[in-house]
């Protein structure tokens, strides 16, 4: 009887172990199920490279190029801000800061990671948006730049904590060797630690960017949501994520608009899948 009970429990454990695979497959299948129906209206190439997104006009125009460019612009801006600052902060925490300061800084980074994105979006709306508007004398402060700055903050906790881990896992002997040869602490960091930790830092950067591309609420609240091809960083843009979040509420289940939003979801899922798998490869390269 006890053997039977344990047999059942162990099968249950195996089943739950497989649950993660099941959910990833389910997510992909259900996105495909609803999203592929869009191909009845528009070709895959037309969908990805179409310049106009008017999903409720008749006939609907379903080109997501403006949305892709919007996402790219906001993400590039956020990456430019968050990568140097994030990596520098990771180096400071891992190598320079005294032990007590280190604990406080790490708590601060964890705090930032814990703040819900809708709260950051709200804060961005009431502080950053008016600031950008007045600084550049714009008709509206809801621009790609505001989105980039706010998203940079959301990427930083990811970049800092993973880059810091990568720096910690550099063998102590590397550092001691450099010191023994008469290098200063900074020379050791710059010439030995950073190159040795480079694949982990690369993974940190990729995961940070993945976080930015997938971020929804803050970006929807502060980038202005205009689905046009952006010509500068100081105009409103609309990202892939914000389009889904803003329009799904009004899309009729089973309409072309509904299918098109799921197809946007497929694009996002594939981007995040690619980023995560590559980052994981970099992290494993470091371990072996």
């Amino acid at each position: 009887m006890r053997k039977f009970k344990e047999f059942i429990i162990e099968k249950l454990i195996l089943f739950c172990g497989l649950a993660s695979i099941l959910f990833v497959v389910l997510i992909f299948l259900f996105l495909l199920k609803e999203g592929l129906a869009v191909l009845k209206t528009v070709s895959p190439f037309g969908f990805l490279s179409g310049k106009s997104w008017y999903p409720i006009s008749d006939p609907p125009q379903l080109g997501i190029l403006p949305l892709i460019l919007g996402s790219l612009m906001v993400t590039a801006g956020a990456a430019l801000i968050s990568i140097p600052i994030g990596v520098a902060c990771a180096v400071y925490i891992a190598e320079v800061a005294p032990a007590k300061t280190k604990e406080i800084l790490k708590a601060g980074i964890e705090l930032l990671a814990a703040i819900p994105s809708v709260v950051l979006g709200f804060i961005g709306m009431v502080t950053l948006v008016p600031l950008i508007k007045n600084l550049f004398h714009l008709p509206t402060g809801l621009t790609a730049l505001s989105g980039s700055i706010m998203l940079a903050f959301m990427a930083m906790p990811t970049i800092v904590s993973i880059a810091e881990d990568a720096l910690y896992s550099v063998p102590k002997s590397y550092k001691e060797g450099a010191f023994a040869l008469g290098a200063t602490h900074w020379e050791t960091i710059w010439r030995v630690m950073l190159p040795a930790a480079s694949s982990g830092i690369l993974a940190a950067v990729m995961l940070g960017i993945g976080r930015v591309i997938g971020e929804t609420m803050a970006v929807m609240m502060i980038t202005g949501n205009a689905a046009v091809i952006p010509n500068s960083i100081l105009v409103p843009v609309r990202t892939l994520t914000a389009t889904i979040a803003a329009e799904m509420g009004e899309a009729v289940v089973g309409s072309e608009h509904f299918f098109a939003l799921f197809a946007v979801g497929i694009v996002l899922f594939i981007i995040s899948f690619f980023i995560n798998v590559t980052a994981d490869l970099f992290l494993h390269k470091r371990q072996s």
Partner: protein
Amino acid sequence: MKRPHRTQKIAFLFLFLATLLIIVPVGLIVVVIIWKGLPAINWQFLSDIPRQGMRAGGIFPAIIGTIYLVTGAIVFALPIGLLSAIYLSEYSNDNLLTRLIKLSIVNLAGVPSVVYGLFGLALFVVFFKFGASILSGSLTLGIMILPIIITASREALESVPYSFREVSLSLGASKWQTIRHIVLPNAIPGILTGTILGLGRAAGETAPILFTVAAFYLPQLPKSIFDQAMALPYHLYVISTQVPNVDEKIRYGTAFVLLTLVLFMNLVAIIIRYKFRKKKKW
């Protein structure tokens, strides 16, 4: 001989400034929300329904809605996550299947939150016909926090020394008895920490509940798990972007309640982790 040291001083200064660029805004954000949000908090704000098109009254239904959703998510995700962690730490071999499971967990953690929303809509709301309901929203949030719970529980289980298991097995206990009576009790603080972090994440997310449960405005509380509900993060989104002329006090007050809730959970998790580290006997 002097120049390398000067370079080092300048470099360290820049590293320090970069760190300040992150830490100072974080501090400011928290201080501003407390400063402007705290005056809005009173018993009426916490216990009344929203009135006058959400421009007055309180946020009680949103608080309750969030509590229901978070509870539902954890009821679903904790058992599956814990058993999954037990599989990875106690049963799995280093083979292709294990590698696939780990890759899936990494991917689940990286899927954009709005894509979880789409998935919840397609599977729970439309396919299973649960409708926009607490059940659909909880299940969606549950799948979203699964990777957090699995990763934290697995680390906790794996940090229990191998010798504990060997002693138990050598005394004639079966594998499951060893896990149940020796490994699990020693891993509970770590599992708890992961669970609470998952709770905090579920409480703060908006995108997954947009199309699966969230109601714009509901004057009464949900009666069953098949009802729609209001939720704090969605409510903050609504009153900051969808409803014009909401008193700033109400917006900051809502942000304050949400932030306090999430940070409180994180604080509890940090305290548990810290206490456990001090008590650890091995």
